[in-house]
């Protein structure tokens, strides 16, 4: 357990050792701003809330979070440091958790840096800050869920580009699993409970529930179970590779 600290710290700092952290944060903030003000017509809406801003988060995460996660394991495998990492006396679950938490903390940092928009909206009017806080928490949880998918996919390959593309596709399916595009593929033949189960995996609907201002325990549990599920799969994939 006490080895979690060093694993976390090394991974977190590694984002800042290259221009990756800087590029990611700049593009993240720029895209958030562009989406909110130009596509979302933040000013024209004339409403002092951040619904528009948070509405774009799933779509932005869809591309940016896999970019954050793709190197987590693929890079270790490619450079050979995987062998060093797995022969150090660190339980595998600590390594998996440490890497994930580092990436999640980094995503959280990027999210926190969007605070100027919160200041803006408070300057312009009297938004419901409780709803905004709930939305930030929801957005952070959703980022974690996307990250766990990305980490798991990254563990399966030594190629970061493959890790990125496959993660985006899997994340996309989870994002829109409540939409007709996915559900129509099942509706014809699958039993109704299955179709409902698939639709309940939709990040969009769980996130929308939270941005509505209510942090329902069910939505929180949904995101945490998904993270747990994908990190367990991540562990199994790393362990399977051991048996060559």
């Amino acid at each position, binding site marked *: 357990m006490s*080895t979690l600290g060093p694993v976390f710290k090394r991974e977190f700092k*590694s984002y800042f*050792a*290259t221009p990756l952290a800087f590029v990611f944060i700049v593009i993240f903030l720029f895209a958030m701003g562009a989406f909110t003000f130009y596509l979302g017509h933040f000013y024209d809406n004339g409403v002092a809330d951040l619904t528009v801003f948070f509405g774009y988060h799933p779509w932005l995460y869809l591309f940016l979070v896999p970019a954050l996660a793709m190197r987590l394991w693929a890079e270790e495998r490619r450079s*050979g440091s995987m062998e060093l990492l797995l*022969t*150090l*006396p*660190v339980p595998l679950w600590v390594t998996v958790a440490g890497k994930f938490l580092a990436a999640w903390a980094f995503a959280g940092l990027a999210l926190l840096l969007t605070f100027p928009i919160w200041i803006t909206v408070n300057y312009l009017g009297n938004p419901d800050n409780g709803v905004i806080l709930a939305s930030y928490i929801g957005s952070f949880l959703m980022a974690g869920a996307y990250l766990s998918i990305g980490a798991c996919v990254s563990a399966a390959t030594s190629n970061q580009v493959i890790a990125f593309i496959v993660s985006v596709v899997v994340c996309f399916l989870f994002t829109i699993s409540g939409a007709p595009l996915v559900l129509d593929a099942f509706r014809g033949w699958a039993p109704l409970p299955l179709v409902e189960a698939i639709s309940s995996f939709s990040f969009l609907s769980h996130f929308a529930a939270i941005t509505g201002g209510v942090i329902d325990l069910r939505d929180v549990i949904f995101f945490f179970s998904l993270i747990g599920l994908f990190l367990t799969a991540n562990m199994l994939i790393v362990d399977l590779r051991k048996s*060559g």
Partner: protein
Amino acid sequence: MIEIQNLTKRFGPVTAVANLSLRVKPGEVLGFLGPNGAGKSTTMKMVTGYLAPDEGMARICGHDIVADTIAAQRTMGYLPEGAPAYGEMTPRQFLHFIAGVRQLSGAAAKAATERAVAGAELGSVMDQPIDTLSKGFRRRVGLAQAILHDPEVLILDEPTDGLDPNQKHAVRGLIRGMAKDKTIVISTHLLEEVEAICTRAVIIDQGRVVADETPRALAARSATGRLDDVFRQLTTRDTAGAVV
């Protein structure tokens, strides 16, 4: 103390290590020899817990590497093939990470790091990113990492590969200096190295032990009294097609 019993590893149809058994006692420096692809690295990967054996077992200081991986890994220092490290880190940061993972902190970490740095003669490059270092220095960073916690068992995969003659001499001195109370296994292609530092030479070929003697006794097997003639005799017989 390393006890290996009937260790076997197959990759698809190829048997990389076949029913290998060895006991290495403290005070021994075992030179692990064999042509490329003989199974040296695969054996080391299994003994250090990176690969899971298909059959057989390995015990390090009494800890089974499969059942009690972390305890076994604590007693071991390992330099993997190619000395992988985190290239964006400096040796100082990298060794700090290793010390943390080895659960050394404060004065103990400082003393251990200083000893390892002095042993591997890294003093002059402590603050340069590992990626920018020469092959020789990178190898020494890997060596410093392996000896940092003063382990009872040292497993070094080609520790002097890429070093110039002076550096080789220094590293051999370092290994000889540690040999008294440690169990050391080094793999190498340099037969003069075996004569210089090893108390025991094991030659493997196609995953099997074909010789296990003192370097002197082994050399005496050939009419010329030279180790490389014995090596060639023992390992080209049935791999003639592959070796040419």
